[in-house]
């Protein structure tokens, strides 16, 4: 299950969705908005997506993860819009028969999501300035 949403992420519901009787391990990852980026103070982030392609790449990430580990069920949700410090921007929940698999599959899924999925964040700094975050050398 993959989803983009402007609403707060209900990670408990997400976790319940992936629990399965044959899966002894469930791993949930939450990405939350940090108050510091390096040594600069952030007050909020704005997340934006290219939605159709983002959902497609999230679905591909799910398929890739299932091809590599015996996933019982998995769910990935990314939030969009304005997020305050401490809010959950992304949640990935995975169940597998054994715990090592569940850890590896969840880690792989969030790593791929961050690498592939067309979503961008804008830092809203404490001094009132803003910066879109585009990893790599500055343009």
């Amino acid at each position, binding site marked *: 299950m993959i989803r983009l949403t402007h609403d707060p992420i209900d990670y408990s519901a997400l976790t319940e969705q992936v629990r399965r009787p044959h899966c002894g391990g469930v791993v949930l990852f939450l*990405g939350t908005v940090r108050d510091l980026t390096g040594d600069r103070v952030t007050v909020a982030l704005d*997340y*934006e*997506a*290219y939605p*159709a*392609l*983002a959902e*497609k790449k999230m679905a591909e990430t799910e398929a890739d993860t299932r091809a590599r580990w015996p996933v019982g069920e998995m769910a990935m949700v*990314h939030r969009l819009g304005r997020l305050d410090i401490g809010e959950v*921007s*992304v949640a990935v929940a995975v169940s597998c028969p054994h715990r090592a698999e569940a850890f590896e599959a969840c880690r792989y899924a*969030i790593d791929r*999501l*961050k*690498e*592939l*999925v*067309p*979503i*961008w*964040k*804008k830092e809203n700094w404490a001094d009132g300035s803003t910066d*879109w*975050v*585009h*990893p*790599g*050398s500055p*343009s």
Partner: protein
Amino acid sequence: MQCRVKLFARARDLTGADEVSVALPDAATVADLRRALASAYPALAGLLKRSALAVNNEFADETLKVPPAAEVALLPPVSGG
């Protein structure tokens, strides 16, 4: 043909538009589109070098011919998560 290109994140801020349009010859490739964009919107030139282009909802190779009326998007390096 006119090719409309959706812009996101800093690319939108650099142009002040969430979509721009450039003229392309028929059978133009993604590489041609990239050059046309940099020429028509010099502010985008730096970021464009680091950005991907998507055509009809898939990341596009430079050699792909841009189909007429394609949905095209300029995708700066991603930072979700």
